[in-house]
């Protein structure tokens, strides 16, 4: 009976285009904070995570949800029409409230590295937490990004992922209505 189904984007086409632009900018400038709006996010997702899912995920992209994000499964399936897969190795996108084990996600192949997964991970905040120094394509000078709630050994996890290039996972971090991206090309070290 679809009790408690929330609305998606208020104005689907312009809202999705704006959000896509924000993700594009964030990917091109790792660590830069972009904003998302226009959506009533279902619990436990924030505005940015919900908007990114609505923008990027559709019936052609298998989606894996971690156990916390699965609370919003009905909303995601209704608005995106995406097949939700139980096996993380089969997904195109992963939505998680805690960073999943990146080794269990598809990293693409050398022939087609674009088939790797993109992880949309919701974190608590970009204002407090651990500071990371980012460098690589898109950054003329190293940038500093502060993130709350990433695993303690995130730097070594990321080093492993970065070393796979051209294969590897791309990460979109969302907190509230703000988002930023860490593409596989970026090198991360603790400040």
């Amino acid at each position, binding site marked *: *009976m*679809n*009790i408690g*189904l*929330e*609305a*998606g984007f208020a104005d*689907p086409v312009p809202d999705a285009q704006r959000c896509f632009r924000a993700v594009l900018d964030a990917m091109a400038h790792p660590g830069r904070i972009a904003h998302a709006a226009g959506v009533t996010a279902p619990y436990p997702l924030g505005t940015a995570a919900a908007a990114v899912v609505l923008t990027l995920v559709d019936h052609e992209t298998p989606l894996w949800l971690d156990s916390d994000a699965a609370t919003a499964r009905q909303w995601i399936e*209704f*608005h995106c029409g995406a097949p939700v897969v139980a096996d993380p190795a089969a997904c195109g996108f992963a939505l998680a409230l805690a960073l999943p084990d990146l080794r269990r996600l598809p990293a693409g192949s050398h022939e087609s590295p674009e088939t790797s997964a993109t992880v949309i991970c919701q974190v608590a905040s970009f204002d407090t937490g651990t500071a990371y120094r980012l460098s690589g394509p898109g950054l003329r000078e190293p940038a500093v990004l502060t993130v709350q709630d990433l695993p303690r050994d995130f730097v070594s996890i990321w080093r492993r992922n970065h070393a796979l290039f051209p294969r590897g996972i791309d990460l979109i971090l969302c907190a509230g209505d703000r988002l930023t991206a860490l593409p596989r090309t970026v090198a991360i070290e603790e400040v």
Partner: protein
Amino acid sequence: MNDTISRPDAIATRQHWMSVLARAPAEAIASALTRAGPLPVWSRVRGPETGLVMVRGRTGGSGSPFNLGEMTVTRCTVRLGSGVAGHAYVAGRDERRAELAAVADALLQDLNTGSRDSLIGPLAAAQREQRLTRAEKAAATRVEFFAMRNMRS
């Protein structure tokens, strides 16, 4: 999830009223809703939005599938104050009609069987009558091709 909706007969009941609503004109749905009592408060979850759906057929009715053509469809999903969601897909681009049909679908899930029949019954009867009238008109102009009939039998 409500377990009554997952029962096969409950699904058939809902399919019936959804098909009646999909065929009913906006004015008919509006007056049926008014008869059922004060209009509930609803919010739009998706749409109303218009798009195309591919209609598929089977050659000879049972052969291999083929794409017959695209059809304009307007869909809408609403949610009542009680939290119940209603869906509607109607042919054409009449957004008000799709929204009213979705509201009626949501409302019908909440009502008991008697109130359901009083809401959907007149609409179904009108459509049945319309179908009959058309069938009668067509039957009156029917031509029997004796040669063909004899060949087939």
